[in-house]
Each structure stands twice: as structure tokens, then as C-alpha cells.
């Protein structure tokens, strides 16, 4: 497989995953804004922009954190080059680059979803439409993954695509968790108090884990349990542990196919020795924020090493 094509597959799935995660984040914020007072709602929209790292671009275009302004900025804002519409264009253009290494089913799923979402985002998204638009974005990822699982040869292309998915998902989950913890809960004394239950629930919603967490914990919402679930529970497909296991499998399979272990495997091992066997108490002890910052840096370094190992670029 060409290095450029491997890069195309990797990024096609990163963009799809990023779009899906962004939609979940907005859905959770929308729900919170609808059920809380104006001040909380504004804080919530502010945290969406902060989680996505868009503060300066947003503030250059808007004075206040109003829901319609925020979701339009995130979904289709012209002064936000990383908007969701552009993510889909990016996913599709990477799919076109990798056209001969994906099946027609996958290509058509990407192309059809791009057409639908591009049309939905061609005009400003109002209150009545936003739910439908976010659901369509979420479903796009699901459809492509479905077509992918059912039709793609399990060779290196498959592993590059999955590596892209899990690098991006881990990045997103870690950012959401960090933002809630770091911005909304500046002091550790809040942790565990009844005041912040809503905020912690919001973390679960943003990573699509509210229902399953609640089912596992008989409806008990508390910080320690949620961090344990989102970071360490390797049964939950959006947890950091799950993403890490999946990425480890991808790198292992690539190393076997190529008959050589790259620098990404070494970085992965180093990261594993640091965090395997960690308990949630130890994480709180070293500081959740410090833990997450370290996690994000290592995750990025592994992504760069994959690009290097497999000659994504000339």
C-alpha cells in the first residue's frame, strides 16, 4: 500500500470520528442548556468552545456564548476552518485519495453522508433543525463503520483506519474529561459534592456513556466512579483504556504484517508501563489533569510515529 494512501485512510477515519465526537459534545450541551438556567447554559456553551480549542477564533467572531451562535460556529462557521462541514469534506477527500483501498460500500457510505451533511450545513442551522442535524452527523460515522466492518479486507489498510479512529477517539475523550475537570471544577473540594453531579453526568453524555454507566452503577452518579469508567473501564468503547487496547492491537497487527516493529510500538510500550495497573485513586493522587495532559501528549506522539514508521509523507 502507498504511504499516501495509508495516510488517507488514517485521516479519513480521524475526521469521521472527530465529526461524530463533536456532534455528541454539542448534543450533550444542547440538552444541558435546555434543562438549566441561562448562566449555566452559557457556561456550558463556553466549555464546548474551550474543549474544541476554538476560544480565540470564536471570540474574534462573537461577543457572547449563545447556543445558536456556538453550534453554527462549530458546525459550519466560515471563520472556523476546522468546522464539521470541513471535517466531512476532509473525510471524503481522503476517501477519494484512498478510493482503490476501500470498498464501494465504504466509499458510497462516505459519499452519501457527505452529500447529506453538506446540504444540511449549507445554510445556518436553527433551533428546530439542530437535533436532526446532529443526529445525522452521528449516524454518518456509524454507517461508515458498519460498511467498513462488513466489507474491508483485514490487511494493513484496515489497521491504519482503525488506528486513526482510536487515536482520535482517545484524544476526544481525554479532552472532554480534562475540560470538565479543569475549567468547571477548579478546586478538588468540589469533587464528590452534590453540586457537580450535573457536570459529571455531562461528561458521560458527551462520550455516549450515560445510559450504560447508570445501568452499571444503579443510577449512582459520582466523580470517582465516572473517572474510573471513562478512563479505566476497558469494556466501554469510548474509554481511554479501550482506545488504548484497540490501538495496541492495530500496531501489533501492523508490526506482524510488516515483519518489523516501528517506533510507534516502542512509544506505546513506554506509555503502557506508565499507566497500566493504575487505580482511579492513584490517578486522583497524581492529579487527573496532569494524567490527562500526559496521556494526550503520548497519544499525539504515537500518531506522529505511525506516520513516520509507515511513510505517510515523502
Amino acid at each position: 500500500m502507498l504511504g499516501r494512501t495509508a495516510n488517507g485512510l488514517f485521516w479519513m477515519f480521524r475526521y469521521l470520528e472527530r465529526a461524530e465526537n463533536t456532534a455528541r459534545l454539542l448534543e450533550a450541551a444542547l440538552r444541558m442548556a435546555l434543562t438549566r438556567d441561562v448562566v449555566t447554559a452559557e457556561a456550558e456553551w463556553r466549555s464546548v468552545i474551550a474543549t474544541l480549542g476554538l476560544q480565540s477564533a470564536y471570540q474574534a467572531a462573537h461577543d457572547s456564548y449563545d447556543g445558536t451562535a456556538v453550534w453554527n460556529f462549530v458546525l459550519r462557521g466560515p471563520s472556523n476552518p476546522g468546522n464539521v462541514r470541513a471535517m466531512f469534506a476532509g473525510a471524503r477527500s481522503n476517501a477519494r485519495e484512498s478510493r482503490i483501498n476501500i470498498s464501494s460500500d465504504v466509499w458510497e457510505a462516505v459519499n452519501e453522508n457527505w452529500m447529506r451533511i453538506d446540504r444540511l450545513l449549507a445554510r445556518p442551522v436553527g433551533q428546530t433543525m439542530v437535533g436532526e442535524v446532529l443526529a445525522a452527523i452521528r449516524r454518518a460515522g456509524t454507517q461508515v463503520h458498519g460498511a467498513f466492518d462488513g466489507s474491508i479486507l483485514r490487511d494493513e489498510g484496515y489497521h491504519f483506519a482503525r488506528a486513526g479512529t482510536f487515536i482520535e477517539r482517545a484524544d476526544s475523550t481525554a479532552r472532554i474529561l480534562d475540560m470538565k475537570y479543569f475549567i468547571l471544577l477548579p478546586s478538588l473540594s468540589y469533587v464528590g459534592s452534590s453540586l457537580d453531579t450535573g457536570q459529571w453526568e455531562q461528561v458521560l453524555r458527551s462520550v455516549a456513556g450515560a445510559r450504560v454507566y447508570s445501568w452499571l452503577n444503579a443510577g449512582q452518579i459520582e466523580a470517582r466512579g465516572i473517572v474510573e469508567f471513562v478512563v479505566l473501564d476497558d469494556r466501554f468503547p469510548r474509554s481511554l483504556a479501550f482506545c488504548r487496547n484497540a490501538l495496541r492491537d492495530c500496531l501489533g497487527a501492523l508490526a506482524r504484517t510488516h515483519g518489523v516493529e516501528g517506533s510507534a510500538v516502542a512509544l506505546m510500550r513506554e506509555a503502557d508501563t506508565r499507566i497500566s495497573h493504575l487505580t482511579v485513586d492513584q490517578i486522583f493522587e497524581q492529579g487527573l489533569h496532569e494524567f490527562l495532559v500526559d496521556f494526550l501528549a503520548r497519544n499525539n506522539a504515537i500518531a506522529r510515529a505511525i506516520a513516520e514508521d509507515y511513510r505517510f509523507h515523502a
Partner: protein
Amino acid sequence: MQARGGNFDEMFDEAGNTRPAYAEYCRWFAEQPPELMRRKNREADDTFRRTGITFNVYGENEAEERLIPFDMVPRIITASEWRRLSRGIEQRVRALNSFLYDLYHRQEIVRAGRLPERLLRGNDAWLANMVGFTPPGGIYTHIVGIDLVRTGPDEFFVLEDNARTPSGVSYMLENRETMMGMFPDLFSRIGVESVSNYPRRLARSLAACVPPAFTGGKPTVAVLTPGIFNSAYFEHAFLADQMGAELVEGSDLRVTEGRVQMRTTRGYKPIDVLYRRVDDEFLDPLTFNPDSVLGVPGIMDVYRSGGITIANAPGTGVADDKAIYSFMPEIVEFYTGERPLLPNVQTWRCADKDSLAYVLDNLAELVVKEVHGSGGYGMLIGPTSSKREIAAFREKLVAKPENYIAQPTLALSTCPIYTAKGLAPRHLDLRPFVLVSPEGIDITPGGLTRVALKKGSLVVNSSQGGGTKDTWVLKD
């Protein structure tokens, strides 16, 4: 369902009776509920959009990808008509290849006084560094598209030779797939020659042209595309996919150890045969356009030393020149010793004084084309142009007469297309695709039928709003 007076209609004769080739199709059509046909027509558009069969139009903002409209009424050719056409096409392609070999070697045809030397000197597509070099297998034109037009029951003419990089074969294939998906019953009723093995035939044909440096095993074939923004990117990806070849861009390639190699996830790997869809001038920045980022620095040196096969060979564009075209009858005779089986359209070379005078006197009746032009750009269609357009064109023509040829406005045949108001005749042409390898000449039974969608229009180019039809060659 009425034939239109004046032109030859391929479906109906002058009395309005169905011609034999279309008899069974028309019976089938008459049985279909009109509402069903309307629905199928809408579906066809969706199918093409979903599968992403698009082309890009240069010079259009925003709308970077467009669909080539597909018409669901097939264009039908009988087995005996096809046999005649194939013989003519094969003869012409054989002559083209011999002609190119001769041009880059002894130039016997010039020595014999049958072709003026100035046509070579003034030809932009002429490549001096191909002189004296023989491509692997002696093949210059691995893939050729011959554009044919029809004016009567037995009157077929060659309108253009596409020896450089003929495009459109993916539409031939996808149009058939779409038709079979939409009307499976039609294909069980009527025996139509298959076109679907074209990519396999192309792969075999290319693999038969390995360069001297080929080390054995399975030849590595790659398709070179300018990238996803090129108008024919869909076709490049489609062909690579169907052939099981890599789809490469200039940035994937580099020259090392005397070979052109592509950057894979496992390191660099040599390419044996490169089916390039990049024009000569962009192929090698060291040899041609130094600003090109689409090509591979040094590929021409590798080519000349036997490290790679380039299909089609650089320098074949000479034969696409419309001034050269006007000599094709002589060229066919010179190299095959036979009379041409397929006639040319009568052509005036404006470089000749007498011809120019005639052309200037008759601009309103003629079609005038640039000798190096393609895609329907830069041409004048006298009968459908305004006085002002003709006057403007006259100035260009007088300023540089050797840049133009003129042809009569042909009474192109028509075939009905499906419209909201029923079947309506439209003008069309035909591009069959021909593969050339040391194993022989292989013509796929069918081709790309391009059809003007506007009533009375003679311009069928997709860049100018033309559409396509599935092309059937009937089984005997």
C-alpha cells in the same frame, strides 16, 4: 415517436418505422408503464451521484464536481455494422502506431514526400528526445480512442484520433452497470456484447509491455494521476481499482537505482509499467515543464534506459494534431498498403492559401477547429454562431491560419433520448476504445456514446453540456 427530417436517425427510418437494430428494444419500451420509466430516469441520476461518478469542470467556481448526464435509451449497433467498424479501426490504429514509430526514427513518410516536414516542426506535441528511441514492444499507443460520427446507413467517418490520453472509458463501463441494474429484463431479452472485461484486458495489455529492467514475477503496474482535483480523477481511480493497480501521484514517486519507485508503507518499490494520465509536458520537470509538480524528476532518463514502460508513450500526441489528421488517409495507405476502410471527414487545412480563401468565404457553413485543440474548446460552428462571433473568429483565423483546419458541418446522425415529453432525437458520436500490445489489437465491442442534450445541438463534449448513453453491440 417520430423521426426528424434531414438527419439520419439510428432508431427510425424516414417513414417512421423502427430500424432492425432497435426493433426488440422498441417493443420492450412500448410495454413499459410511462410512470415506471419516469421513476427509473430519476433514479439513474441518484445512482451516479451516490457512486461519485463525477468529472470536474475547469474554470467553474465552487461546483467542483459535476455529473455527466446519463440518458437511459441505449445506442445500438448491429453485429455486422460493428464488424465493419472494427476492421476500419484496427487498420487505422495499426497505421497510427507505425506512423509514430516512423516519425521518431527514419521519417520515411516525409522522405517519400507524403507528409510535409513543417507539420512536425510546428507541432507542440513533438518530442525531440523520443527520436531514435523505441518504446518497449515497439508500442506507442497502448490505449486509443477513435471518435466516429455517422451520417447515413453505411456512412461512418473518423472525426478525431485520440492517441495521447483518451478518456471516458469508465463511463462506458459504468453506463452499462447502471443499465443492467435498472433494466435487467432488457438484457435477458436482447443479446448484448459484454464490455465489463475491459479493465482485465487493459491490465493484460499493459503487463505485456514490460520494460527491459523487469525482473520477472508479476509486473507492477500503476496509474499516474494528477490527483483528486483533476477532471478525470474518478476514471483514474476506477481503472486502477478494477485492474488491481496502484493509483499514484507524482509526490509518491522518485527515481532511485535507475528505476521509478513508489513510496509504500514498506519502503520504495519499482514500477514496471506506468499508465500515466498526466500530459507529456508535466511528466518530467527535468525534461519538460520545470514547474510541474505532477510528474517525476528523471523519469524520462529511466524510460530511455529501459527502466520503465510509459503508456501511452511520450510524444504520441503528435498524431492527435488536426493538421496531421487531415493526412490520415495518406498515412493509412503509406503504412498498410491498403485503402482506408474508414474515411476521414473532408478537411481544409487553413495553412494552404486556396483552402484558407475557401474557408473564409464559407465560415457560416463550416466548423473550424484549432489544430492542437481538444474538448470542444476554441472552435467555431458556423451555422450556429452569430455574425459577431464569426467576425471575431475570422480575425483569429487570418492572424494565424496554420493554427486551424475547417470541416463541413456534418449532418450527424441522431438517436432519441428520454425526455419528460417522451423520446426526442439528439445528435451523437461514438468513441470505441482500442488496446494495443505486442499480442495484438483489441477493440472492446461498444464504446462511449456522447450525445448532445440540447435540441439541434452538434456539440457532444461533456465539458460543454453533452451527455452519454450506454452503447450496445448486438450479438449475432
